[in-house]
C-alpha cells in the first residue's frame, strides 16, 4: 500500500506549485481524459526522451492500476540499437504491453518505394505503418509526445487533434479547445491524436527528467562516435543504413543526440554533457533550436512539418 510522504506534510494552505508541477498536473489530467473518453487508446512510443517522460506521467496517472493502453512503436528499422534495447527493457520494467510494427513490412506489403540516396529516410513512410496499426487494432486515440515549441506548425495544433479516416490534419477546421475541457467525440473512422505535453518546452522536459530522475538511453549523453560530416556541417552518426562514398568525410567526435529518430535523418551535436545537469546547462546557453540542430527532414522546406501532418504524420 501507499506510504505517507513526510516531505509533503506542510502547514495548511501553503502548498506552492511551481510551473513544472502545473505542467505535470495538466499532462496527467489529459492522459486520464484519454482513458475516460476512449475505448481503445494507444501510446505512441518512439524511445525518445519525450515519450519516455510520457510513460512516467502515465505511471503517475494510472498507478497502482495498469496503463489503460498499450505502448506502440513504429520501428523504421533505422533506429539506433541502444534505443531499441532501452525500449524493450522499459516496457518490461513497466510491465505494460508493447506492440511493435515494422516500416519494412509496410514497404513490402504495400509495395512502397524504398527511399534511396545517401541518407535514405524512412521517416515519411512511418505514416503508412501508423495508419495500418491504427486500423489493425481499431485505435480511436493515439497519445504522442509532440510539443508545440518544436516547430511552428505544431504550435497551431490542439491537444486533442481530430484526424479523418486517412489520418489527415486539417488546420483550418480544428475544433475550438476551451479551458481544459477536451472533446474526444468522433465519428466512425476518425481518430484523435492526443498531445499531453503540448505546452512543455525542451528545457521543461529536461528539468522534469532531472526532477523525476528518469533514466534515458545512453545516446542522449556525450560519447565518442564515428560520424559523417554533412555539407551543412552537421554530424550524422555512422550506420549501415547510410550509402556513403569516398568523398565523404568521416570523423570521430564527442557527441550526444538532442532528439532521437531515424538514424539516417537525426544529427548528433558536439557536446561534453555527460549528465542531465550538464545538458540543462548546455540548453540554457544553446542558440540553435532542437529540430534545427538535429532534423534533416524539417529543413527540406519551410512547410515540411505542416505537409507531413496534413498527410497523417504524428
Amino acid at each position, binding site marked *: 500500500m501507499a506510504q505517507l510522504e513526510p516531505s509533503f506534510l506542510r502547514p495548511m494552505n501553503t502548498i506552492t506549485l511551481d510551473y513544472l508541477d502545473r505542467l505535470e*498536473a495538466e499532462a496527467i489530467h489529459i492522459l486520464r481524459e484519454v*482513458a475516460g473518453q476512449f475505448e481503445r487508446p494507444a501510446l505512441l512510443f518512439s524511445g525518445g526522451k519525450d515519450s519516455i517522460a510520457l510513460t512516467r506521467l502515465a505511471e*503517475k496517472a494510472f498507478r497502482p*492500476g495498469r496503463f489503460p493502453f498499450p505502448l506502440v512503436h513504429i520501428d523504421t528499422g533505422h533506429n539506433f540499437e541502444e534505443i531499441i534495447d532501452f525500449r524493450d527493457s522499459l516496457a518490461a520494467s513497466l510491465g505494460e504491453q508493447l506492440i511493435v510494427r515494422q516500416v519494412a513490412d509496410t514497404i513490402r506489403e504495400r509495395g512502397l518505394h524504398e527511399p534511396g540516396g545517401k541518407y535514405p529516410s524512412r521517416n515519411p513512410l512511418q505514416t503508412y505503418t501508423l495508419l495500418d496499426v491504427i486500423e489493425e487494432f481499431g485505435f480511436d486515440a493515439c497519445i504522442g509526445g509532440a510539443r508545440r515549441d518544436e516547430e511552428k506548425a505544431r504550435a497551431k495544433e490542439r491537444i486533442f487533434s481530430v484526424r479523418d479516416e486517412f489520418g489527415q490534419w486539417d488546420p483550418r477546421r480544428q475544433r475550438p479547445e476551451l479551458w481544459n475541457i477536451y472533446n474526444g467525440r468522433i465519428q466512425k473512422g476518425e481518430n484523435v491524436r492526443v498531445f499531453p505535453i503540448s505546452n512543455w*518546452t525542451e528545457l521543461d522536459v529536461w528539468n522534469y527528467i532531472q526532477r523525476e530522475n528518469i533514466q534515458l538511453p545512453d545516446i542522449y549523453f556525450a560519447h565518442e562516435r564515428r560520424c559523417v560530416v554533412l555539407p551543412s556541417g552537421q554530424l550524422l552518426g555512422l550506420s549501415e543504413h547510410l550509402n556513403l562514398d569516398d568523398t565523404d568525410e568521416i570523423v570521430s567526435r564527442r557527441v550526444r543526440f538532442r532528439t532521437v529518430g531515424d538514424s539516417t535523418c537525426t544529427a548528433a551535436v558536439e557536446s561534453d554533457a555527460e549528465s542531465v545537469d550538464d545538458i540543462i546547462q548546455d540548453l540554457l546557453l544553446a542558440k540553435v533550436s532542437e529540430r534545427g540542430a538535429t532534423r534533416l527532414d524539417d529543413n527540406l522546406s519551410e*512547410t515540411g512539418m505542416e505537409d507531413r501532418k496534413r498527410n497523417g504524420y504524428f
Partner: protein
Amino acid sequence: MDLLRFITCGSVDDGKSTLIGRLLYDSDSVSLDVLATLEKRRHAGGAVDLALLTDGLKAEREQGITIDVAHKYFTTPRRKFIITDAPGHVQYTRNMVTGASNADLAIVLVDARQGIIEQTRRHTLIASLLGIQHFVLAVNKMDLVSHEEAVFNQIVEDYHAVAEQLKLASVVAIPLSALNGDNVVRRSRQLGWYEGPSLLEHLEQVPVPADANPNEPRFQVQYVIRPQTEELHDYRGYAGRIQSGTYRPGDRVRVWPSGLETEIEAIEINEREVAAATAPQAVVLRLRDDVDVSRGDTIVPVNAHPAVTREVEATLCWMDERPLKAGRKLLVQHHTAVVKASVTAIVYKTNVATFESVGTDAAQLNDIVRVQLKTAGPLVVDDYRQNRATGAFILVDEQTGATLAAGLIEGTERDYFTPPVLAEASFSI
C-alpha cells in the same frame, strides 16, 4: 518559478504577431536557425518580419494574417510565459474565445492611428466575459503618430469608458512600437514622457491569479482506478484534478449528484499518500465507504454548495456555422460529465459593439447569447464568475462531435437552490 498565460488580441494589422515576435526576439528567445529562416524571407532592404515567428501555417504566411491560435513559450529569469496569439479577423473570433479561456491576462492591442474600434470592444468583452482579470491596453505603432503623448492619452481615455462598462478590475496602458521595439522589452527614449513599466516588465510583475476559488473545494472524477490484483483486491481510487480549493484526508464529503456522504480516507499523488492537495493538482481520492461513484461525479465537502440542477441559464459564445435556434438538442460537456440537453430559450443576444442586450431568435456564428438549457441529467455547477473551473462547459453536436459553443453558467445563486440531502451513505459489505 511561476507561470503566466496570456493572450494577445486586437484587430487585424494591429501588429499582434509582430509584438509577440518582438517579445521573443528582444528577450533572446529565438534560436539562430529560426532567425536564419526569417532572414531568408527578409523584404529587400527592410527589417525582418517578426510576425513570421508566430504565423505557422502556409495560408497564414501567404495571406499575412493569423488564422488560428498559436502557442509560444518563453522564460525570463523571473517568470515562465505561455503566449496565445489569437487571430484578429472577425470570422475567427471563436479562436479568440479559445485562447481567452486559458489566459490569466489579456493584451489588447490598439493601432495608435485608429484608436478604439469595434474589434477592441469585442475582444475586451470576450476576454472579460471569460474571466480574465488583468488587461494591458497596448497602444501600438506610436512611431506612426510621432510618439505623441496626447494621442496616447486620448486612447486611454476612450478605453476607460469600455473598462467602466465592463467593470474591468485591472487595466494598465502602455504606449509602444512593436516594430521598433519601443517599450516592449526595454523602455524607450522616444517615449520619454511615459513613466510606467515596459510591457515585459509589467508581465513579470503582475500577480498571477490564484486558483479558481480557493474557498470552495471542487473535484470531479475522471477515471476510476481498480487494479483488481490479489494484493489490491479492494482498491478503488477516484482519479481527477482538483478544480478549486484544498482537500485533506478526513474531510467529510458528499458525492454529487447522488448526494451520498462519506469521508476522504486518503489522497494519493504518484502512489504516495499526502496530507493535503490543492488545485490544480492531479490526484487520486480514496473514500471511506464503498459508495457508488463514477466518471463525471463531483466530490465536495459536506458544507460546500454547488448548484445541482437540470436547468441552467448560461452565456454562450456560438461557434458553429449553422445558427442555433431554440429547441435544438445537443450535448453539454461539463468537464468529465456529459449529458443530453435542449436549448429551451434564447433570452437575448449581446451587441458586441455597444454591450447592449437585444432580442433574437437565433444565434449566428460568433454571437454571444444568453440561453436557458434543460438537461437530461443533473449538472453540478457553479456560477462562472464564482468559479472559472466549474462554471464552464462546452456544447457538442451529438452526431458530428463538433464543439458548438463555449458556455458560462450564470446566476446560479439567484436562481437555484442546492437540494436537501438526498440520502445517507449506503454501505455495502
